């Protein structure tokens, strides 16, 4: 026995010695396949793109606005992705939840004079409370009814904002004694987005994520397996509201002001709908999909479409195109663009297989 093991080990070591180049390549590929590394790389690329658009003439300045909006709203989209793709519940309260972040920052910073990060903590705390409330409601009401209910809740929040203080203005935030200018907000927003992505990815692969997925596919079966529906529904809603609220703090950090009564404010119905659309377009089960969908809804207009001279002359066409895109994606690719990409990948691998077969003959084994 010992001898055989020894032989095996020696064979292994021989193999490694003879093909030293392969494992390194494999390791590098492994690093690139590591999701945490991918997210960090994404963050780095995003910051580089933003810097290029601010500091150099190679990218127009409009890219900055588009990309930073995408980053801010992506945080809310990722939370929504978790809620919809993994726990099977939809909500239209995102707008109202984003408002929690905005108003927490406003009240904590301008009225109490405390720091921005404390404001984020307060926003998270309030979001948890609201998330618990919605979570409890979601135990009694499901599907489309829940969607409308969250819409109602969002309207309540918006009314509260309107009565409390219709328009808020925090100006430029100071962190550690430094004034954060509009162009510098990316150093806060992008790292937070990357952290959110990493946390979410880990959550999805953890038993929590699997329990949520089980609950989505069949509540009864999940309960039979010992999964507490109450716990995971509450958790899903809490995560969704907390992310939306963080997204709100980032938005107010970047914009400096917001108005509740305006139909296009962050907390209006249109934001909730846009986030929902972003997640559907991107594919509601993938973090990359959510980010890409958010880019389509919030970034594509200012970065790409407006720079096409024909479209910049007719700005109304841009909204028409994005509307038509939404309809087409939902009608023909229900899994979103992530599914489209997956299909594309499948087609390429099939093509490669065919080429290999033509070269070496069919693999009969």
């Amino acid at each position: 026995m010992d001898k055989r093991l020894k032989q095996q080990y020696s064979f292994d070591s021989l193999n490694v010695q003879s093909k030293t180049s392969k494992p390194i390549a494999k390791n590098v590929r492994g690093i690139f396949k590591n999701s945490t590394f991918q997210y960090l790389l994404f963050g780095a690329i995003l910051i580089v793109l933003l810097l290029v658009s601010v500091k150099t003439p190679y990218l127009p300045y409009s890219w900055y606005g588009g990309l930073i909006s995408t980053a801010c709203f992506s945080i809310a989209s990722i939370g929504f992705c978790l809620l919809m793709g993994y726990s099977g519940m939809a909500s239209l309260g995102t707008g109202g939840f984003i408002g929690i972040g905005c108003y927490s920052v406003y009240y904590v910073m301008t009225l109490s004079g405390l720091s921005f990060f404390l404001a984020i903590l307060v926003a998270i705390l309030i979001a948890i409370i609201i998330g618990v409330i919605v979570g409890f409601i979601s135990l009694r009401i499901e599907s489309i009814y829940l969607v409308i209910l969250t819409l109602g809740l969002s309207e309540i929040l918006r009314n509260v904002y309107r009565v409390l203080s219709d328009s808020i203005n925090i100006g430029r935030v100071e962190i550690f004694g430094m004034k954060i200018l509009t162009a510098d907000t990316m150093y806060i927003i992008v790292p937070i987005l990357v952290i959110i992505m990493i946390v979410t990815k880990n959550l999805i692969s953890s038993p929590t994520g699997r329990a949520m997925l089980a609950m989505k596919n069949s509540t009864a079966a999940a309960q039979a397996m010992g999964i507490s529906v109450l716990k995971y529904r509450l958790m899903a809603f809490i995560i969704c509201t907390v992310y939306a609220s963080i997204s709100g703090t980032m938005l107010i950090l970047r914009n400096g002001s917001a108005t509740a009564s305006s139909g296009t404010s962050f907390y209006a119905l249109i934001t909730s709908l846009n986030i929902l659309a972003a997640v559907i377009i991107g594919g509601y089960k993938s973090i990359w999909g959510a980010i890409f969908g958010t880019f389509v809804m919030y970034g594509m207009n200012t970065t790409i479409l407006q720079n096409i001279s024909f479209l910049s002359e007719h700005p109304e066409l841009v909204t028409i195109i994005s509307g038509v895109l939404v309809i087409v994606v939902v009608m023909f690719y229900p899994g979103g663009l992530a599914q489209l990409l997956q299909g594309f990948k499948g087609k390429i691998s099939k093509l490669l297989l065919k080429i290999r077969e033509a070269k070496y003959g069919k693999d009969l084994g």
Partner: protein
Amino acid sequence: MGYFLDTVLDSTTAMCVTALVTMAITLIFKTSFTTNFAQGVISAFGAFVASTFFNKMGWPIWCAVPISIIVSAAIAVLVDVGIFRRGRYVNAVGKQIITMGLISVIVSITPLIFPDLKYFATNFLSGNISFVIDGYNVTLAKNALVSVIITTIVLATIFITLRYSKWGLSVRATASNEYVAGMMGINTHIVTAISWGIAGGLGALAASINATSAEIGVYFMTEYQVTAFLAGIVGGFATFHGPVIVAMLIPFCTNMIIWFGNGVISKLTGDATLGASIGNWATTIIYIIALIIIFFKPNGIFGKKIEKKV
């Protein structure tokens, strides 16, 4: 008493608009199994059409409004036939997203077609009817009276048709199970298309009524639409009358809270700002009450409990 009556009469127009919009939303919800977010913008488009014929071309209002109803109905039918029929197996949330894609399209097209319109008619019928109660001069705008009459006739016709006609039966069958209704020989495509058409028409009528007191714009019906969704849930989408009744109660109760603040609390405490601030919270209070009702009666006030099988 006089101020109370004045408040009640003030809410009539809003009640009419919400009732019509809710009827439209309910019809689409029951036949297409989705909430139509584009209802508001399709209605607004109707108001723009009416405004074009009335303000720009000088047609009488009694012609302009029916034309707007026809145009909106045609758009709604087009949406159903062109988009929803093709995506029949898209799930409910997917359908919602489609309607929101439609919002983007219609919102951008409307200003292209009607570039400089802001107002529609000031009134269907000008003048007031006034009477004195308890020494308080109560006025009822003739316009509000006309709105109430039109709304009552339209809604009554729809309810009677739903209850007693063959079309109504087929709508109810489609609403309860589209697949089985199709197997029993009902042409569900036509039922759905007609429902969309009626919903579009109702929307345009509601928009025209609302346009007598508000500036028209692409989003000017959205608030009513949100109220209608909530009314649908509180009333229970299982019936047609439930949502409409609740829809009429919502603006009424909102105005009642305002009256309570201004008329009762202000007089009792002698503090006018306190009363006014209660009025500010009226919508919030109504929405919270609605949420509490939904929490305890998830199927709505008029809804039926559906047993879920595993």
